[in-house]
């Protein structure tokens, strides 16, 4: 048993993270898993303290919830709108209308994003932030449970 670590590669990753000021990096290739985290706060305080994890544990991997591919823009995290109730998701006010919002749209706080029908009532779900709509998680007419992600919004910084 011997360690086979490609230090050049890891160094390159860390350098890239420093350069781009990334807080988090994950890579998975052929059963090898690398996770690197950098504490941005301390990084900004001129004391970089990245956290690095390399693992090949495939078992754990299979239990992970799939990681959503997230478009990273600047330093801001995405804001998720989740369902406050159980019901049926409608992306438009009625079948003949266009959706309330589409990916890439700018959305304003309190703007209606969708309708969730519960107990025959139509509940308008509003945006909680100003920003850009990055993702819609549910298809029109599909059921949603409590806490399920509906939209990802890139907030205005």
């Amino acid at each position, binding site marked *: 048993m011997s360690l086979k670590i490609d230090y050049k590669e890891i160094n390159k990753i860390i350098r890239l993270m420093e350069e781009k000021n990334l807080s988090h990096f994950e890579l998975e290739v052929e059963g090898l898993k690398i996770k690197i985290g950098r504490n941005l706060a301390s990084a900004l305080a001129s004391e970089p303290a990245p956290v690095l994890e390399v693992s090949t544990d495939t078992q754990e991997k299979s239990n992970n919830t799939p990681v959503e591919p997230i478009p990273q823009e600047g330093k801001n995290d995405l804001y998720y709108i989740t369902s406050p109730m159980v*019901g049926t998701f409608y992306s438009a006010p009625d079948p003949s209308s266009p959706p309330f919002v589409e990916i890439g749209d700018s959305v304003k706080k309190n703007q209606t994003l969708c309708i969730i029908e519960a107990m025959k009532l139509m509940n308008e779900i509003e945006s909680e932030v100003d920003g850009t709509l990055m993702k819609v998680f549910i298809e029109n007419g599909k059921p949603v449970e409590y*806490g399920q992600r509906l939209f990802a919004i890139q907030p205005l910084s």
Partner: protein
Amino acid sequence: MFSKILIANRGEIALRIIRAARELGLKTVAVFSEPDKNSLHTMLADEKICIGPAKASESYLNIPNLISAAEITKADAIHPGYGFLAENPRFPEICETSGITFIGPPGSIMRLMGDKNRARQEMEKAKLPVIPGGDNSTEDISEAKKIAKKIGYPIILKAAAGGGGKGMRVVRSASNLEEQFSIAQNEAKAAFGDSSLYLEKYLHKARHIEIQVIGDTKGNVLALGERECSIQRKYQKLLEETPSPFIDEKFRKKLIKAVHDAAHFIGYQSLGTFEFLVDDRKKYYFMEANTRVQVEHPITEMVYAIDLIKEQIKIAAGNKLSLSPDLRLSGHSIECRINAEDAETFIPSPGKIDFLSFPGGEGIRVDSAAYNNWQIPPDYDSLVAKIVAKAPTREEAIKKMIVALEMTTISGIKTNIPLHLAILSNSDFIKGDYDIQFMEKFLDKMNSSRKKG
């Protein structure tokens, strides 16, 4: 018959209902709050829906979410279990409006039984004796004084809207009625939003005896032999047995007949339990009726070799009651409620179960949603398992239960198993000589011997 049942509950009773439904060939939908994501009922149902956060009022008590969950999963029936919405008459009514069958009694019966005064009046009409007093809900202390004088001390104060021990106070003489009345009012107000109380005769050496009832939608009602539930602490049942060591066959028949007739009189449907206090001269007094399946229903199933939940589901689907009126109680069964709590202080002990090994073998039944490494959420009740023993005689059932508890291992959390073992070894308990005061005296004795020791 239905095609899919949504179970509006969690824990062992949700699992109990999932099993029964599946045995009837029905699909099941579990609902769960966020901390119950990894609970066994969530994992073992055919479908699962998150209905809200930890707080019960926003999840297991959230009628809109429950109805929507049934609608989006196309469930055609809802079983409420016990607790949560099981006795809320609005729930069956909303189910009906939404075209979903509620597996339980109609809202009208819940409303009747939910109002303790109306229930007592109705039961008196049905020839069931009620405890002197009671029919006297009041918020006024001077009115209460007059009633108490008429009934005669000791009396007990109970919340008119209540249940579960909240707002209950025993008053032994006129001199402390005023103080106790005010405390009980505050408790009742806090628990049920209604501070009216009723007063009733407080019985000596009383036993808590209850009769299981099941009725179909065609007017057929069956009443079954008694459950002895006098082993209670602060009105919380701890250990139940059937038959009661106090009740002979003649009295059993009389009680069963009286309850059958009363249940028939009000057109009782689905499962229900009529609770009585029985004094040492075998006089029985109706206390209240619970319009749902009872936690302790397994002991009745054991001695009658029946499945009450399957029968309840079939009846809700419009089937005729299939249980024979000739059913005879056979053997003796005991249930111990294993709670995640300190056996001495009763302080709840939620947390992670590090290791779990349940008993098995002849005459042992375990109803539990616990599993190895399960993190018990602190948000709900502390019931970890119901361990049920059955044997031909009471003596053998007690021994079987002791051995079963001794061979049970639950680590990582505290449980009340040591308390159960102490009760099962108590000489009065073994003789069957106990009443609803048993636990109070038992704990006083344990505490004082601990202090001495």
